[in-house]
């Protein structure tokens, strides 16, 4: 019997300790750091201050954060519009075929995103595949300048994050009960009405989790703007990184990270609401 308790204690103690050390304590330290002052030589001065948060909402920084949120949101919406019909097609295909189609989506998903971002250069650069092809067919006369613009960053985000949108959408659409759609049609609803009133609400959990999986990384993937964008394209992730590694302003970087965590929390709340709401709405 003694052995039993020892094993149980070892397992619980070990895991709780691990979660404390690498999950909870670092988060508390980060939160703590965001409320302290910056010190040029010691990095942090242990004096309470709200300065970082005040600066976060100051016009200059505020507009950068807003732009970055807008860019991530637009990338998310585009992924949703491209991904939804695609996930629908896969979910409605024959079992065997769907499995292959899904596997083909997973392969880019498994490949390192930096390598994939890097691969995109070969397509987008001035003498890259896209320009060469378009010029070959005479569609354009001079190469399009895509590399080092916001468009390239956009394309990079959509390209690397699209699988993250398709997979949860597929899971949600696959679970969709066909009888619901048939019932709706039998009761005289048009195709578009069935889609709006039944398909969308029922797949809402997939839509929201797909959007989360795209939106949050889109804010934080600093290497995509670095590689594909010009110097002026900056996302929240680039800002956080620079605060920690270039400006050495840890309280400010911490405050920006906390802001990002808050955004994540907000999205989690929306997710839970949408799951419950969707269930209720269809039952009515």
């Amino acid at each position, binding site marked *: 019997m003694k052995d039993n308790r020892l094993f149980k204690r070892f397992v619980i103690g070990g895991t709780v300790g691990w979660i404390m050390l690498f*999950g909870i304590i670092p988060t508390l330290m980060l939160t703590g750091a965001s409320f302290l002052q910056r010190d040029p030589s010691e990095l942090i001065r242990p004096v309470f201050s709200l300065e970082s948060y005040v600066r976060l909402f100051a016009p200059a920084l505020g507009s950068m954060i807003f732009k970055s949120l807008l860019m991530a949101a637009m990338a998310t919406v585009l992924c949703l519009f491209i991904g939804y019909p695609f996930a629908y097609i896969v979910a409605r295909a024959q079992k065997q075929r769907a499995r292959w189609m899904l596997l083909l989506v997973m392969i880019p998903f498994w*490949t390192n995103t*930096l*390598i994939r971002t890097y691969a995109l250069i070969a*397509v987008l650069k001035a003498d890259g595949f896209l320009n060469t092809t378009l010029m070959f067919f005479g569609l354009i006369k001079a190469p399009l300048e895509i590399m080092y613009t916001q468009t390239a960053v956009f394309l990079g985000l959509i*390209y690397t994050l699209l699988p993250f949108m398709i997979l949860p959408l597929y899971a949600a659409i696959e679970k969709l009960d066909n009888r619901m759609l048939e019932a709706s049609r039998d009761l005289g609803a048009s195709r578009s009405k069935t889609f709006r009133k039944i398909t969308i609400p029922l797949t809402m959990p997939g839509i929201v989790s797909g959007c989360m999986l795209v939106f949050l990384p889109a804010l934080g993937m600093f290497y995509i703007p670095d590689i594909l964008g010009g110097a002026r394209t900056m996302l929240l992730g680039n800002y956080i990184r620079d605060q920690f590694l270039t400006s050495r302003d840890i309280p400010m970087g911490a405050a920006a990270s906390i802001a990002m965590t808050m955004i*994540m929390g907000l999205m989690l709340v929306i997710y839970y609401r949408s799951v419950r709401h969707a269930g209720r709405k269809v039952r009515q």
Partner: protein
Amino acid sequence: MRQLIKTTYAGLVYLFLYLPLVVMAVYSFNASKYSLSWKGFTLKWYGKLLTNTTLIDAAIRSLTIAVISATIACILGTLVAFMLHQYRFQGRRAIFGSLFIMMMSPDIVIGISLLVLFLATGLTLGFWTLLMGHVTLCVPFVAATVYSRFKGFDTHVIEAAKDLGASEYQVFHQIVLPMAMPGLIAGWLLSFTLSLDDVIISFFTTGPTYEVLPLRIYSMVRLGIKPDVNALSVVMIVITVAAVLLSRRLIKDKK
């Protein structure tokens, strides 16, 4: 007609997903160094890759860290899942919550908070901090995968074993572990790919003494495209895909 539209649409999405990979692969066999124009098939970039020790070393480091962190994350994650499934104690819900939050947290926030921890404790950034970073990234995913596998168990088997006098450890070692094996393999594999795929957490938690492949490529890209990087990227993609396909087969056989 509808079918045609569907096929075309799916085809376009696949084209978008695969075009850059294909173009990169083609470049890696192209004799011309800079332009897309085809100057003949060559393997010289692969040959050059073999002599580029910094790149090869970085790739080996990436694979090493992926194997080690996947293994550790697998052990820890399985223990966490076992505990959550088997024991009832105070704070259980809190652990569920923390794991979920760790799983959903943006990579950059995980990376930054670990960096703050390492700075505060005065650890030198390198292999060990990177390992801790990757294990932290992977454990919640393993726990979730294995936990969902536990949920499908017949709990009567465990109760029967206990009635027959098995200790907690014996139950874990001789019953739970073998039954959870497919979940464990899936969790290991997920961790392996998460670790290989990670750029952001590595960026913050490793130092110049242990530079992994994505970071090496990241600093090389600023100096322009190198054909041997194309070659290495193709090799890495092939390794990842082969590992995943192999494991899928293993999991299927076990079922």
